[in-house]
C-alpha cells in the first residue's frame, strides 16, 4: 500500500512539474536544412479592436501560408495591460518573439537589453524610405532596436462651423487661440477648449509640451534634467491656467485622455489637440459633425516663428532577445511592410495611422481612400507635423527620463496644485521640477 502511495506521489510530483513548465514557448527547430523557416513564434500587439485586429491575424495567416512550417501565435492586449504583461514577463522569461511597443517602452527595453537590433530588417525594407525622427527614437549606438510601424502627430482640431458662425479665423498663435476659444466659449453647451489635468495620465504634460516646444525649448534638457522653470515653461503653465479658467469645464482638472477626447467627439468643445484618430472618434460618436471639423498646425508663440516639431507618436515593432526564432520574427516583421498589405493596414484607421515610409505617404494607392481624401487638409497638416516631432522628452534622443515625465503625473499634480490649492506658479513649477529630477536620480541616470 505504501509503495503504491509512493508511486502516486511521484506521479503527482511529475504532473506538477510538467504543468509548471508547460507555459514556456516551446521551440521546435530553427530552420530546416533547405533554408526554409520552421518553428513557432508569438506576436503580441495592442490593436484590440476593429480592422486593425483583423489585419494582424490576416498578416500572420498570410505569412504562415507562405511558410508552411511556421506557426504564429497572435496575442492581443490593450496598452495598459500590455505594459503590465511585458514588465512581469521580463522577470519570468515569458515574453513574445515580436511585439508592438510605445517609444517609451522601447527605451526601457533597450536599457534592460531585452531587444535585438533590427538594422538588417530596416536595410532590407530600405533605410532611406523611413522618416529619420522615428528611427532615431529607437536607436542607440547606431543600433536600431525598433522599426516604426505607423506614425501620428498632435495637431490642433477645430470646429469649422463655429468659427464661421462667429466670423473668426483659424488661430495661428497661442494668443489668438486664447482669444478665439474665449469668444467661442458658450458653456455649458460648448466650451472653447478643455484643458485636461487628470493625474494618472499625461495630458497636462502634453499640453505644456505643446507650448514649450513651440518656443523651441524642451521639457527635458540635453543633460537629462527636468525643465519646468524656464521662461517658456512658466509662460506655458500660466497660459494653460488662464485657458482653464476662461474656457474649460471645471471638471477637466480630473480629465484623462478619453474624457478629453469625448468632449470633442460629442461636439462639446470648439478646439482640441489630437492626432488623426480624432476623425474616427467623431465619426463614431457624432457623425453629423464629420463635415464640420478640420485640423490646423499647432499654434506658435509668434506667427512668423519657425515651424518646430512638437509631438509625434511613432508606434514601433520590436523583436525580443528571448526569441528562439529571431530570423522568423524578423522575416514576419519585414512582411508587414509589403506595399499592398501595409497600405491595407494603414487604411484600417484612415488618416489615423500615417505611413512610416515616405514613399507610401505619397503613393496614390494610399491616398486613394475616401476618409483620407475627405480630410486631405488634415492629413497634410498631420503628415507635415509627423516628420518634425518626437515623443515627449525624446527631442535629444531616447532617454528613460521621457518615460518618467509622462508616467508619474508630476506635471499634472503641479497644475492641480495651482488650480485647486492656489499654489503660486513659480513655486509649483520649482517643486515639480525638483520632484522630477529626484525621480530621474532614482533611475540611476
Amino acid at each position: 500500500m505504501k509503495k503504491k502511495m509512493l508511486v502516486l506521489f511521484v506521479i503527482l510530483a511529475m504532473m506538477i512539474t510538467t504543468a509548471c513548465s508547460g507555459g514556456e514557448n516551446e521551440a521546435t527547430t530553427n530552420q530546416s536544412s533547405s533554408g526554409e523557416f520552421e518553428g513557432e513564434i508569438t506576436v503580441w500587439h495592442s490593436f484590440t479592436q476593429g480592422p486593425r485586429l483583423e489585419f494582424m491575424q490576416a498578416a500572420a495567416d498570410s505569412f504562415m501560408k507562405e511558410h508552411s512550417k511556421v506557426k504564429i501565435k497572435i496575442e492581443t492586449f490593450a496598452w495598459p495591460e500590455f505594459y503590465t504583461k511585458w514588465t512581469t514577463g521580463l522577470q519570468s522569461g515569458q515574453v513574445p518573439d515580436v511585439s508592438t511597443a510605445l517609444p517609451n517602452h522601447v527605451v526601457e527595453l533597450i536599457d534592460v537589453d531585452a531587444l535585438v537590433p533590427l538594422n538588417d530588417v530596416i536595410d532590407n525594407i530600405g533605410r532611406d524610405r523611413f522618416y529619420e525622427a522615428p528611427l532615431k527614437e529607437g536607436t542607440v549606438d547606431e543600433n536600431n532596436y525598433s522599426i516604426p510601424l505607423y506614425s501620428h502627430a498632435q495637431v490642433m482640431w477645430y470646429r469649422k462651423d463655429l468659427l464661421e458662425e462667429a466670423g473668426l479665423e483659424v488661430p495661428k498663435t497661442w494668443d489668438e487661440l486664447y482669444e478665439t476659444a474665449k469668444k467661442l466659449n458658450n458653456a455649458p453647451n460648448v466650451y472653447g477648449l478643455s484643458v485636461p489635468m487628470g493625474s494618472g495620465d499625461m495630458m497636462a504634460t502634453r499640453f505644456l509640451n505643446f507650448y514649450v516646444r513651440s518656443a523651441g525649448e524642451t521639457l527635458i534638457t540635453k543633460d537629462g534634467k527636468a525643465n519646468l522653470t524656464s521662461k517658456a515653461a512658466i509662460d506655458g503653465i500660466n497660459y494653460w491656467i488662464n485657458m482653464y479658467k476662461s474656457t474649460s469645464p471645471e471638471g477637466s482638472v480630473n480629465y484623462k485622455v478619453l474624457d478629453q477626447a469625448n468632449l470633442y467627439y460629442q461636439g462639446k468643445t470648439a478646439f482640441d489637440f489630437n492626432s488623426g484618430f480624432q476623425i474616427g472618434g467623431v465619426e463614431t460618436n457624432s457623425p453629423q459633425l464629420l463635415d464640420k471639423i478640420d485640423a490646423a498646425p499647432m499654434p506658435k508663440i509668434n506667427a512668423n516663428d519657425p515651424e518646430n516639431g512638437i509631438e509625434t507618436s511613432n508606434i514601433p515593432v520590436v523583436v525580443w532577445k528571448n526569441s528562439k526564432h529571431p530570423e522568423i520574427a524578423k522575416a514576419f516583421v519585414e512582411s508587414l511592410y509589403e506595399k499592398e498589405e501595409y497600405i491595407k493596414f494603414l487604411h484600417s484607421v484612415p488618416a489615423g495611422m500615417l505611413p512610416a515610409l515616405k514613399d507610401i505617404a505619397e503613393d496614390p494607392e494610399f491616398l486613394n481612400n475616401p476618409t483620407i481624401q475627405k480630410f486631405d487638409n488634415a492629413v497634410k497638416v498631420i503628415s507635415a507635423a509627423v516628420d518634425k516631432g518626437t515623443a515627449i522628452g525624446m527631442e535629444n534622443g531616447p532617454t528613460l527620463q521621457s518615460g518618467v515625465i509622462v508616467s508619474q503625473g508630476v506635471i499634472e499634480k503641479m497644475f492641480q496644485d495651482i488650480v485647486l490649492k492656489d499654489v503660486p506658479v513659480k513655486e509649483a513649477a520649482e517643486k515639480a521640477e525638483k520632484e522630477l529630477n529626484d525621480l530621474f536620480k532614482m533611475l540611476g541616470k
Partner: protein
Amino acid sequence: MEKKLKSFNLTGMLFVLPSVLIVILLLIYPIFSSIYFSFTSKNLIRPFYDFVWLENFKFVLTNPDFYRAFMNSIKWTVLSLAGQLFIGFTAALALNRIPKFTGLYRTLLIIPWAFPAIVIAFSWKYILNDVYGFLPNLLTKLGITDANINFLANPDLAFIVVVLINIWFGAPLFMVNILSALKTVPSEQYEAAQMDGASSFQVFWHITLRHIRVVIGLLLVLRTIWVFNNFDILYLITGGGPSDITTTLPIFAFKAGWGMKQLGVASAITVILLLFLLGICFLYFKLLDKWEREDR
C-alpha cells in the same frame, strides 16, 4: 515517536498536498517575497538588485507624501466603515421588521455589492461628470446649483464623494450579514424584556446589539482589511487626485511599484501596511475574544 510515525497518514497527506501547495503559492509566497524585496533595490524590469536593508523603509518613512497617503487611508477606512455600518445596520433593522417581501427587498438592496468595481467606477464617473453627467445637470435644472458642479474635481468634495460611493457599495454586505444575525436573536428574550417593561433602547442595547456584536465585530475586521487595501474603486474614479487628495497607501504603493518600477520601495510600503493592519486586527480580535468570553 513510533506512535507519531504510525499516525502519519500518507493518503491524507497526499490529498492535502495540492491545497497546501496552492496556499504556499498564492498566500505565503507573495507575503514573503514582499518582505524579501522590501530589503532590496529590486526594480520591476531590471534583473539584478542589491540588498539595501532598511534604505527603502527610511525612504518611505521620511517621505511626507507617505504620511499624507497614510492619513487618507485612515480617513477613507474610518468614514467608509462608519457609513457602511450605520446604513447597513439601519437597513437590516428595518428589513427585520418587514413581514412581507423581505427577500425581494434584500435582493434589491444587495445590487450595489454585486457590481464589479470597474462598472461602479465608470458609472459614477459618468453620473458625476460636470458636462454631461446626470447629477450635476439635474441639480442645476432643479435650481439647487447655479452651474454644474464637478464633484470629483472639487477639493472640498472629491474625498467625501468617493467615500459616499464606497458607503453605497459596501453597506449591503453589512445589511445582509446583520440581517442574518438578527434572525438568530431568540424572540423569547424580547418577550421577557417587554414583560419587564424595558424601553426600546434598552431592548436594542442589551438584547439586539449584545446578541449580534460578534458578527458586527467580525464584519468590521474583514471590512477594515478590505477597505484599507481598496485600490480599484478609488483609482478608477479619481486616480488618486485631484492633487493627491484621494491618494491612499495602496495607490501610493502602486505608483512606486508600477509607475517608478521601484519594487523594493513598493514592497516596503506594503510591509508597513501589513504591519499596521496586523496591529489593528490584533486589537479587534482582543475585543472579540472579550465579547465571546462574556457571552459564554
